């Protein structure tokens, strides 16, 4: 069920990634200030936006789980957060490379944007041990959902606090009343953002399809009383 539509989605993702990479390197103009280094912007910023929105989406699925008690929504929430954490790793690494190239430092601790993203990322890293610490599946799902809702609400609050804070070196590209991105750069950025969003969606569906297949095999084992039917992952929710 979860694998339905995965093939066209994967094809669309690959096509969109190819298009956005072509636009980044062959269409987008060189930045007057940063030059070629600014090409990292088209990777780093869409990854960051997708990761943060993914965390919020995980919170929304968690609300659905708490309201309905349906384990399906817990699985959606878990997978959304899982893929967003992976995206978060990419954001931190690409950001550090960009920082080293343009500021001469891998990390600037005084910069609110960097530190706040790190805090959000580390917060979501605690989701796994938190889940793993609870044995009972129902309690695990409920507590994980409460965590996802609380942390998901923290993401936009954190984002707003950072926008209001005094920036040191990190630019505020989309908030400036004057200037901002020119049309050609904005087009490339939006294509990159769409590509990253599609990639996130594809990976979420892929992960859910794999979890669903694994869950079906376990159900089959249990139904047949086959050996190994008791073995099950404690950390990941079982999708049926």
């Amino acid at each position, binding site marked *: 069920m979860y694998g339905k539509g995965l093939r066209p989605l994967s094809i669309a993702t690959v096509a969109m990634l190819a298009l956005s990479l072509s636009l980044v390197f062959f269409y987008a103009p060189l930045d007057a*200030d*940063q*030059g*070629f*280094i600014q*090409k*990292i912007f088209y*990777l*780093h910023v869409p*990854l960051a936006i997708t990761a943060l929105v993914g965390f919020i989406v995980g919170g929304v699925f968690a609300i659905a789980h708490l309201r309905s008690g349906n384990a399906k929504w817990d699985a959606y929430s878990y997978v959304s957060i899982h893929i967003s954490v*992976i995206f978060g*790793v*990419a954001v931190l*690494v*690409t950001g550090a*490379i*960009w920082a*080293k*190239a*343009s*500021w*001469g*430092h891998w990390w*600037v601790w*005084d910069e609110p944007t960097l530190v706040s993203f790190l805090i959000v990322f580390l917060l979501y890293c605690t989701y796994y041990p938190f889940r793993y610490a609870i044995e009972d599946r129902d309690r695990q799902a409920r507590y994980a959902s409460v965590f996802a809702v609380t942390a998901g609400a923290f993401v936009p609050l954190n984002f707003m606090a950072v926008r209001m804070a005094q920036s*040191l*070196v990190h630019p505020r590209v989309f908030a400036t009343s004057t200037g901002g991105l020119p049309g050609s750069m904005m087009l490339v950025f939006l294509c990159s953002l769409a590509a990253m969003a599609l990639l996130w969606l594809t*990976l979420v569906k*892929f*992960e859910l399809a*794999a979890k669903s*297949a*694994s869950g079906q*095999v376990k159900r*089959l*084992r249990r139904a*047949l009383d*086959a*050996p*190994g039917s008791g073995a099950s992952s404690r950390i990941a929710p079982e999708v049926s």
Partner: protein
Amino acid sequence: MLALLLADAPALPLDEAGKYVAGAYVVFVVLLVIYVSIMASKVARIERELKEVASFAEQRKAEEKEEVSA
């Protein structure tokens, strides 16, 4: 602080900037490949488990047939 940072790090020439841009995009691709490899091993495990269950079901069916014929 900002002036100090910018003075310390002026805009890089293309040959130097290229290394960093390539590094960032390579990191992204490597992470993607690692994720896909992990998922591939998971899918392979599911396939193996499914084979085990299928052979177990076939074996049980054969045993039931033998019991009926006996």
